[in-house]
């Protein structure tokens, strides 16, 4: 069985998955998407990707379009185009969560400065403003009042990319100083961690210094996480939730999950499960 790992930057995670797949008897081919152009009108793409493909690009743009091309050419790609598309966009993810009755923080979207102030007032301060694309907590900011939000909006108005003027505003959930990252592979939750916010930051992203510890969820919370995974098309996912007085709220789903932090407490079960899942998918 051939596992093809697509990448544009080899992180620790890609190396671990490759090693586990080799240990399970698979051959592993690493392909840098930056170096392999594809003639998308030809009929030979499926032959070029003989095996199961695990898309692990750090650039969401490359990941989305490479997945689209391969899937339309009937190549077996993990995650699917649908999952990749939805999870790379916070607005689309929230819409799917709401449609499927998955608890999520109160969220509004506005397409102008004035409309953003209006929806923020309706949500109530403090509010969190996030770019709809991007990751690692980048440009995720908290505004305690209208003055602070105005400053953030003025800064966003200067960005040339119009996506930054899609204002995605969310209630600031009163939660413990941590969130919960669940790594889902297929129909199973493989590992759950608390991510504690570091000193001097309210965000919990490991990329921003969040501190990881093992976590466990109740049966009901497990069910919510697995429903959330299904809602975005399933596959290999990192699902982030916050504890609130309304129970857990899902606030983000990651489609090319990083797990170095989680592996520091859960070990190699995560890359092993990902490799096993990919091998199983190749057989189906």
């Amino acid at each position, binding site marked *: 069985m051939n596992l093809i790992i697509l*990448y544009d*930057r*080899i992180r620790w995670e890609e190396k671990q998955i490759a090693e586990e797949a080799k240990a399970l008897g698979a051959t592993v081919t*690493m392909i*840098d998407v930056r170096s392999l152009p594809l003639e998308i009108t030809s009929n030979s793409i499926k032959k070029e990707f003989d095996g199961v493909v695990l898309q692990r690009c750090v650039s*969401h*743009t490359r990941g989305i379009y490479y997945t689209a091309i391969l899937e339309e050419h009937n190549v077996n790609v993990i995650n699917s185009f649908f999952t990749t598309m939805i999870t790379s966009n916070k607005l689309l993810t929230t819409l799917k969560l709401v449609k499927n009755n998955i608890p999520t923080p109160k969220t509004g979207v506005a397409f102008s400065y004035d409309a953003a102030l209006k929806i923020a007032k309706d949500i109530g301060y403090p509010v969190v403003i996030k770019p709809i694309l991007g990751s*690692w907590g980048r440009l995720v900011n908290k505004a305690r009042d209208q003055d602070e939000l105005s400053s953030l909006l003025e800064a966003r108005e200067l960005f040339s990319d119009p996506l930054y003027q899609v204002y995605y505003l969310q209630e600031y959930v009163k939660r413990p100083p941590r969130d919960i990252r669940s790594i889902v592979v297929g129909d199973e939750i493989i590992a759950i961690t608390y991510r504690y916010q570091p000193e001097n930051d309210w965000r919990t992203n490991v990329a921003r210094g969040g501190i990881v510890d093992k976590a466990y969820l109740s049966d009901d919370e497990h069910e919510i996480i697995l429903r959330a995974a299904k809602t975005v098309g399933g596959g290999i996912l990192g699902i982030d939730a916050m504890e609130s007085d309304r129970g857990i709220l899902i606030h983000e789903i*990651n489609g*090319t999950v990083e797990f170095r932090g989680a592996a520091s407490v859960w070990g190699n079960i995560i890359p092993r499960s990902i490799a096993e899942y990919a091998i199983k998918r190749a057989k189906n």
Partner: protein
Amino acid sequence: MAIKVMCQECGGTITIPDDAIVGEIVSCPDCGIDYEVSQINNGSIQLKIAEDIGEDWGE
């Protein structure tokens, strides 16, 4: 034995891990610049300056 490469930017010494693979990022411990391993051939290693982090990067 780990291979050592000189940083093009500051002249510092970058130690390449034994298990390094093409596409992996290594950093200069002196100036912090990131390099990408672009080629490994019979124990010789080539580096290129790594891409800057994009706005669409993440997990």
